[in-house]
């Protein structure tokens, strides 16, 4: 075939939260948004990145010794190392050099065929459970040609296909993928453009537009990651629900995803700080309340995903 390659953070088998049945979730790397609450910071950059667990580090500095880019410096005081991310090329030499496995390379390049070989391992489970493959991220539309090639292979093998997207992509890039998908999950982060810009670094106009167009032709599930202090006001949730109602019958339901802290340790591994570290997740009652308000718009609403 061709030398089309995509960068993948990871492949999760036996995934149960990303579509019907038993699925394999392909986590692409690279995202055009920079959401302040992001729970998967290691999927933001479209390049391989080195993760570093300081707790496992003995400060032997073997990594610094092998770094061709001189990106790693040894700090005697803390007996640990620091990586200058602007210098790091993600070559992974330091990962191989670390005897403590304190460094990990996030991101691996796959051809569509190589990726298919991974996901077809669980075909027996797709067949039995009505499951299939979900491409998530990161943002799959950033690697649209690669994802399209991969989805074609999935369809040739009769796997059910789903995608999780923020829908922040030019329609010309988005539309060809939609044709290859049995189900699309689209995030709806905020109805107000100004707030959206402030928290994600991008306007919501293209997202709302893509959502409307996608819902005319695809089975869609809309998801709102409910972030305390950002989009958890009753007004915003009600307005979002009304918008979802307006999208028509192709939208099966609205899912409210509770904010969680499962990803924050990853910021430390990337040697970055986390903007929202002190915000507690919403209670079950608060989530149930928002769900009930959203339901008044006359649509199906569920918590979780």
């Amino acid at each position, binding site marked *: 075939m061709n030398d089309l390659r995509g960068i993948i953070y990871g492949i999760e*088998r*036996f995934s*149960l939260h990303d579509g019907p049945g*038993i699925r394999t979730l392909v986590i692409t790397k690279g995202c055009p948004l920079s959401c302040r609450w992001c729970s998967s910071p290691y999927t933001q950059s479209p390049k391989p990145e080195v993760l570093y667990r300081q707790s496992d580090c003995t400060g032997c500095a073997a990594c610094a010794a092998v770094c061709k880019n001189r990106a790693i410096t040894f700090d005697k005081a803390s007996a640990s190392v620091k990586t200058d991310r602007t210098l790091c090329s993600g070559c992974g030499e330091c990962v191989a050099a670390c005897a*403590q496995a304190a460094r990990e390379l996030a991101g691996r390049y796959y051809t569509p065929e190589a990726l298919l070989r991974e996901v077809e391992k*669980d075909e027996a*489970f797709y067949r*039995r*459970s009505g*499951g299939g493959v979900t491409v998530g991220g990161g943002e799959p539309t950033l690697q649209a040609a690669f994802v399209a090639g991969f989805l074609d292979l999935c369809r040739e093998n009769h796997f059910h296909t789903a995608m999780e997207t923020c829908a922040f992509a030019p329609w010309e890039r988005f539309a060809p993928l939609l044709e290859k998908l049995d189900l699309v999950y689209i995030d709806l982060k905020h109805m107000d453009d100004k707030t959206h810009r402030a928290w994600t670094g991008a306007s919501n106009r293209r997202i709302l537009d893509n959502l409307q167009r996608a819902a005319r032709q695809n089975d869609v599930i809309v998801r709102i990651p409910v972030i305390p202090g950002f989009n958890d006001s009753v007004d915003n949730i009600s307005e979002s629900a009304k918008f979802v109602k307006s999208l028509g019958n192709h939208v099966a339901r609205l899912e409210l995803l509770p904010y969680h802290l499962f990803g924050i340790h990853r910021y430390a591994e990337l040697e970055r700080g986390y903007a929202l570290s002190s915000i507690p997740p919403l209670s079950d009652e608060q989530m149930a309340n928002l769900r009930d308000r959203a339901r008044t718009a006359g649509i199906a609403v569920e918590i979780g995903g």
Partner: protein
Amino acid sequence: MEDTQHSAHISHPTSMDADALPARERILRLRQRHLDTPCTASIDRLRIETRIMKQTEGEPMALSRAKVFAAVCSEMPIDIWPDELIVGHAGPRPLCRDVIPDDCAVLLKGQRLASLMVDTIEYGLADFDPACQKELIEDIAPYWRGGGRWEKTQTGANLQALPDYLKDLLFLDAGDFPPKQSMIYTPFFISGGHYGHNAAAYPEILEKGLQGIRRDVADKLAALSPDDAAAKSFLEAAFLALTATENAGRRFAGRARKLAAQEQNRQRKDELEKIAAICERVPAHPARTFHEALQSIFLAQVFINWETPNIFSQTAGRIDQYLLPYLEADLTRGALTPEDAQELLDCYLIKLNHVNRGNHLAVGGYTACGRDATNMLSCMILESMKHIRLAHPFISVLISPRTPQKLLVRAAELSALGTGHPVYLNADVLTTQMLARGSAGGAPVTLALARTATPVGCYEPVLMGLDSGYFYGGYFNLAAVCELALTNGASRRYKKRIGPETGDPRAFADFEEFRSAYKAQLSFMMKHFSAATDIFERVTADLLPTPFESSLIKDCIARGKSREDGGARFNFRTVIGAGSSDAGDSLAAVRKLVFEEKKISMDDLCRALDADFAGYDDQRRLLCAAPKFGNDSDEADEQAAWVSHLFAEEVARQKDTRGGHAVPMGAPLQYYMFGGWAVGALPSGRKAWQPLADAWSPSAGCDVRGPTAILASMAKIDAAELTAGVTLNLRFDPEIFRSRDGMTRFAAFLRAFADQGIFQVQLNIIDTETLRRAQKEPEKYRDLVVKVAGYSAYFTQLIKPLQDGLIARTQHKL
């Protein structure tokens, strides 16, 4: 209720079927009484046995044994609990372990009896009352000690029969009594025990009654040629034993009647009178009702326990098949309501906790003609298990492509309770295993029979009423074999040569030479295993024939021989492998790092292993990072499959002493820990003396790619050639069961598992937090049931390393 404290942590899914019935108050009370009853030990039975053995010295052993059984039938203390509808128990009271002759030496040495017989019990001489201690020391033990080497006990007789070269391989110190096993050469039955592991011809008991079977014995005796002395004494013994059971049934009837006379509550009085009438009739005579049928098979099982105390895995088998006609008839003529039927079944399942461990009921699967065997009783049995939530009986769901979704969802609901029940078995593999017996050197099994196979114990498939499998061919330490292949036959733990000289590994030219050494070590070990087991089998036949139980296995009467002596239609012995994943992972690591990538020299590897990796951190890191079984990596899986196949092939070469053959099995129970204590560091990166991987499951924590990847790895193992079964343990997060959708996906997971040709999967659906809390506050978690290694146990009664092992097992999240 106190015991429900932990249950509150587990979300009990509401049943999705309208016809599922709630547990009645009676069942909750019986369950609580069971949990509140202490485990004890008693010499009541041993006292009877010792007296009769003294009296009958010099008579044919079968007759002596029958006379012991007859005396037990008329003298064994019996008990009926309030609320019980099904009565009987092994031992003089429920949850009481009979002391057996082989225990005497252990107790006198100041050691404690530990046994899974009544869950976990630790009982030393001082725990008996002073009169019993005195009796044990002065009257009972001296008889069994005999000339000083306990040669009247199985342990002593085994030792006497073993040639010195085998003693040297088997024991750390052969002069000690009972001697400590090396944990590398571990054929069983060194220290007492008996066959067990069977499903008697219960349908025949229901149809003919034990007295009907006694008539068959009489007919055979009448037709016997007068010079067939051995058959004559066996058949006379069987006749005597079967006669004695009638008396035992009457004693239960008498006890029930006496209690009825004292009973003030009208309803209970009626129940006791009914129990009396039923025990008067069964199992001596044919059963007519569902209640009679349950009581009949249960008392028959109690009698098997009375004949042979402290046995494992006697099993009632596929009761959903042979009890259904009784249930249907009662329901049709209105003699029983579905609610009452469920209650009776609940009572029966609770009672299965009062006989031998390893009771196994199977539901679903195939009929003899290959149709789906699921029926209303299959679902009711799963429902009963939800009601009682105890460690026993073990339940398996036999899955075939024809299994209805309803049964799988019912089973998933039971799984969701977090008790480790049920085990899921692949009915197609089960059938193939039975057919494969013939091709592996055993007597051929017909297709119709193969489909009716029933699991006993953990899941070992047997043919009900036809089989006499000796399940104690021993634990075969496949990880130790790997060590020996890298040490020229020397054991690191025992610091001596116990295998053949297969050469210095530094001289191996390629990977195949290493595998040849592995194979040579394995063959050598297998040969000596087999020789030792031959001896133990003969000792059992001579010392412990079972005239009663044997008469419930086809062809024993016709051949005039006990099951121990080859009377059964099908005879075989199992050899149980352990550490196959450790061996496979080690082979894979050596292949990759020593021979292919040459990142570690063989010399460095040997030094690293000798040093238990001290000073070899880099090498160990490389070894640990090498592919591991359980992640769907061909590099590792193919080595594990090779070890598994080699083991199966070598086992199948062995014969037993009863005209049968040896069959391989992958269920080493808790031996995976003990076996680990005898093995030094391995190329898999496992450190010295650590537990081995549990059965054929991946090494703890090495399965990092999720349950589907484990199943994919497992699917590369030829499960059908491991004809006595193979264990796969998984631990799931309870989260999956919190929704109907999750249940459906779980059912799909089960079907996909069966599609892959995997034999068995067992699950612990308990989160790590609950297990940790149970370690900290055991008193609150007394009823927390877990699957350990094919068997179920109460978590808080397990020793700490086993508890830790369960916690370490990778938990598969969503």
